[in-house]
């Protein structure tokens, strides 16, 4: 099982002292956070893609390429890549390039974004959101698997005799997760291809996500990729950790109360009860995270959101120390002890190369 962090890359004023990082400071902070993730033994660093302030990450491969050069083990992912408004040809090329530079430590999470105007800004119509996600990914899937592609569709210029370059490393494309908050069509798409399904899981009560994941698992088996237990599931989560629970609550409350995504809304107590957010001791984070397995079954990747709402870099780095040293080692052990027989391993490039060679042999 893989553990990591995912970042939205928001530039947010720290509500406790009114300071706001510059874009440069935030971008460099994201890099520092990624390096720290590797240092404390996490497996994955994932970042969002946005094309509007207050978010800085418009160019994930630039940042992930830089981080790749400064890390050895960390898997670099997106969370998410806009499959709707990016040209699938550029996604195929950019991420194959990154895959070579990172020695295969790359995967992607496809998403449709949460900002309506991005569609018209990139020449698309939001009403085609699902259709774009389906058609663009179908093309991307072929570009990574067929050397020369002839293709015509509804949303981009046709291709005749096109070869995306570079070819995926070792002939094995980056692993793909499909992220969704509400669409069964996307769970179905992930199942059809035998790709991973990532449930953001941060905002909605778990019942909603367990339905989507159940659908994905059933259809994964229907399409012949394995048993429902062998489907590849990732989950989001969110925590603020201090050794002592009361300290965590006291320190995080002003950030929670003003957080861009849920601030000025429910109380911290209600929100932690109704969503995966934990604000408390390492043991409380461990206990809550272990309940995810009860709701969703054995899963392969757990990502935590740790660096939003204006939290200072120093605090985030302390959070990562606690996460890496006190939470994740216990979770690794506990999840492994509970795991059912035959559950899929978390996807890595090396494992995928090995299973491809086994198929060919």
């Amino acid at each position: 099982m893989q553990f990591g962090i995912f970042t939205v890359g928001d530039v947010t004023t720290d509500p406790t002292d009114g300071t706001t990082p510059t874009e440069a400071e935030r971008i460099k902070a994201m890099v520092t956070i990624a390096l720290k993730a590797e240092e404390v033994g996490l497996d994955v660093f994932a970042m969002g893609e946005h094309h509007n302030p207050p978010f800085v990450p418009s160019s994930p491969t630039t940042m992930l390429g830089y981080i790749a050069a400064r890390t050895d083990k960390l898997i670099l992912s997106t969370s998410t890549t806009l499959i709707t408004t990016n040209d699938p040809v550029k996604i195929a090329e950019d991420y194959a390039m990154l895959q070579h530079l990172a020695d295969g430590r790359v995967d992607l999470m496809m998403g449709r974004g949460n900002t309506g105007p991005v569609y018209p800004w990139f020449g698309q119509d939001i009403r085609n959101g699902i259709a774009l996600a389906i058609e663009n990914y179908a093309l991307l899937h072929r570009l990574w698997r067929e050397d020369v592609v002839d293709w015509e569709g509804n949303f981009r210029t046709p291709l005749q005799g096109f070869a995306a370059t570079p070819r995926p490393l070792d002939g094995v494309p980056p692993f793909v997760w499909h992220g969704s908050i509400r669409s069964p069509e996307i769970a179905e798409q992930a199942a059809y291809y035998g790709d991973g399904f990532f449930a953001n899981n941060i905002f909605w009560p778990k019942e909603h996500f367990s339905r989507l994941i159940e659908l994905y698992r059933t259809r994964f088996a229907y399409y012949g990729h394995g048993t429902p237990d062998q489907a590849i599931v990732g989950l989001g989560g969110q925590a603020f950790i201090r050794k002592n629970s009361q300290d965590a609550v006291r320190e995080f409350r002003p950030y929670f109360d003003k957080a861009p995504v849920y601030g000025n809304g429910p109380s911290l107590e209600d929100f932690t009860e109704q969503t995966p957010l934990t604000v408390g001791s390492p043991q409380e984070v461990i206990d809550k995270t272990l309940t995810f397995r009860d709701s969703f079954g054995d899963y392969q990747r757990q990502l935590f959101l740790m660096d939003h709402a204006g939290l200072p870099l120093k605090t985030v780095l302390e959070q990562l120390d606690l996460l890496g040293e006190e939470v994740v080692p216990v979770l690794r052990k506990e999840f492994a002890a509970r795991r059912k027989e035959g559950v899929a391993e978390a996807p890595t490039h090396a494992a995928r190369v090995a299973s491809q060679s086994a198929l060919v042999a």
Partner: protein
Amino acid sequence: MTVIAVVSAGLSQPSSTRLLADRLAEATGRHLEGADIRVIELRGLAVDIANNLVTGFPPPALKQALDTVSEADGVIAVTPIFTASYSGLFKSFFDVLDNTALQGTPVLIAATGGTARHSLALEHALRPMFSYLRAVVVPTAVYAASEDWGATSGDGLASRVDRAAGELAALVSRIPAKPRAATQIIPFEQQLAALRPFTTG
């Protein structure tokens, strides 16, 4: 069993909006013997509704209310008229309801106000809102001004309540019971194929 959800957006306690809702529910019950009538007071959900607007998901009590309305065979929706239209709380509840939840559902609309001058708010605000939600709005909308509560029977409020309830009951019994739908799967091949007719290749 036939389920009728009654949504009342009155704010005072006791409220004339709830009073009207109860009259409509009672009359509907007379026309639809054995119907299970479930009343939802939005006042108690006001904070949940605001939180749902902020976070994008309903807290448990609101979720239960939204499910009740979504699964009901008929709905009675009653609001006070504020500033020439439905109250913000009433609108916000229907804003956080899934916009397909009332598709094909018979809905009786009703409102209360200080004077009869605002009665057409039912026709220019509530009826189009429920049309947008593709609900089947009953022809008679019931407006109760303060003076109606002291009027003699005859062609007064009581007969309008009874007429509207009869229309709702007739629609509910004519429309087949709502399927309690599980998540619909559109097989992926079908999703792909839906994109193909536009292509030449």
